[in-house]
């Protein structure tokens, strides 16, 4: 399917358009955070603490008098960066493992897939916590932890697609024409297994952002004073009865971002990989 055709099919319904628009706004916000924020996001002003939403502070102020809206805006950059780098790690590692396992088969496949089974046996959040227990808290380590957690999913999806592409006539033709493994994998296999990988990338971004927020919420991800949405929720939790806005707005930001990635992922799956959608519906697998 050509890129133009894919985009036309993807955006024929309003939900995918809205999701893409929301993500575009978020990306722009992440890039222009400092310029867009109406106040200093880290500067404290105790005389102005716990102010309810008003014309001057649309989302109110926190326990140190910092503007919640400015912190939510700057938090977009942290969430998107951690999510993107984490998924980047799992994408590169997982696709490489999947390509090798699926293309070479035999013992390479056995070894790599059993290793991926081992990683898969750990519940995602617990695995991330265990990795952070070793590496120590922080947003860089959170990226690595989330990246490790999602690697086996990419490995499995890539391997499954490679197994069917490997037997195609054009791959056999390239092999009989004397093409090397690297060339066959790069030129003929990889371009034909991208559809499910693109779909998984969008869905994994949603879950990576959710995981980063959860890890920051429990104090293992982004550290203060950086304004991460999960960290802001953790701070807001202690003041929920006096200052509801401290918890409501960062949570809404996470919810809307994750929802947008999920909706776009679903729309991409409908266009690029409809069979996978049917298979997923039967297993309850979401990430």
């Amino acid at each position: 399917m050509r890129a133009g055709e894919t985009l036309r099919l993807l955006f024929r319904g309003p939900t995918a358009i809205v999701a893409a628009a929301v993500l575009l706004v978020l990306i722009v916000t992440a890039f222009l955070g400092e310029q867009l924020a109406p106040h200093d996001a880290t500067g404290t002003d105790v005389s102005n603490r716990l102010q309810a939403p008003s014309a001057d502070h649309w989302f109110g102020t926190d326990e140190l008098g910092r503007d919640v809206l400015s912190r939510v805006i700057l938090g977009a950059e942290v969430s998107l960066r951690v999510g993107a780098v984490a998924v980047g790690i799992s994408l590169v590692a997982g696709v490489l493992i999947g390509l090798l396992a699926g293309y070479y088969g035999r013992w390479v496949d056995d070894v790599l897939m059993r290793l991926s089974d081992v990683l898969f046996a750990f519940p995602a959040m617990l695995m991330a916590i265990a990795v952070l227990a070793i590496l120590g808290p922080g947003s860089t380590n959170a990226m690595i932890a989330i990246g490790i957690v999602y690697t086996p999913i990419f490995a499995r999806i890539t391997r499954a697609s490679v197994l069917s592409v490997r037997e195609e006539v054009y791959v056999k033709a390239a092999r009989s024409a004397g093409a090397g493994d690297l060339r066959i994998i790069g030129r003929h296999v990889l371009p034909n297994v991208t559809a499910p990988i693109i779909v998984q990338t969008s869905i994994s971004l949603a879950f990576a952002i959710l995981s980063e927020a959860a890890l920051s919420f429990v104090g293992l991800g982004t550290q203060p004073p950086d304004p991460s949405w999960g960290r802001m929720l953790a701070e807001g939790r202690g003041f929920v009865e006096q200052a509801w806005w401290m918890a409501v707005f960062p949570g809404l930001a996470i919810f809307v971002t994750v929802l947008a990635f999920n909706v776009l992922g679903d729309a991409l799956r409908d266009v690029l990989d409809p069979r996978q959608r049917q298979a997923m519906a039967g297993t309850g697998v979401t990430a």
Partner: protein
Amino acid sequence: MTRYALRRLAQSVAVLLGVSVLVFAIMQLVPGDPIRAALGQQADPETYQALRDRAGLDDPVPVQFVTWIGNAAVGDFGVSFRSGETVLSLILERVPATLSLAVAAIIVALLIAIPLGTLSALNPRKPVDWFASLSSQAGLSVPDFWLGIMLILVFAGTLGWLPSAGYVPLTEDPVEWARHLILPAITAGVSSGAILTRFVRSSVLESLGQDHVRTARAKGMRARDVLTWHVLRNALVPLVTVGGVQLAYLLSGVVVVEYVFAWPGLGQLAFQAVESRDYPVLQGAVLLFAVIFLLVNLVVDLAYARLDPRITYRSAR
């Protein structure tokens, strides 16, 4: 079937061995001396040496691994660096709280999924179907820790109907146990409810297209009876296995929900272990969750193979 079961079992044992290696490695990979990290520099030298001896940290690593895995196989995960209690007793203390939360959450999930999924399948492309689709998408995207805080804000703060946190054992006061359970169970159950709604919808849709349903309708059977006896009965059988997998996810997935509601379960134990660098407790909790996960997946795979004889070892990989 027996051959498949044996091979699947052997595969699980191999994965379990790999899991054990990784869990064992937690203590080895911690930078510096793990006991010094847990106790601090001012620790009493006798306590320090006693813990070091108990954990066998002066032995060569392969010997440490063999001893550790041999002990773990009989439920001895060592002692807590902090309290000196055995890890097993700490874990067993926490099991009832986590189990009651996970079971209550799966009940919430089913109470959401069965009516919503069925209604959505019976009314495809109508408002109720869109509502179900939107709700399940929202349920999958909402951060459970945020949902928990919002529920506390409304039901504990504003309305004052339910307690905001804490746990009361069932044996102590069943009414208070239930009151404390409601908000965490809803919080933990929503995302599983969203997944199961999609499953019920596709399962009911598939069932509606079956020949025996058409025959029952052609016989003049009442629509309600067709739904109860022919559609739902068949559509909901596979829900048992998918629900089982969700329960396994919930047992380990409620860690953050436990944190929000100060619920003294296994997840909170794992967090406390990370905070206090109590590595044997962390190892015990992680290993236990991984074993539960593996066991449930094994049982589900075997159940599927029993129900569908076409599944073979090769195709199941």
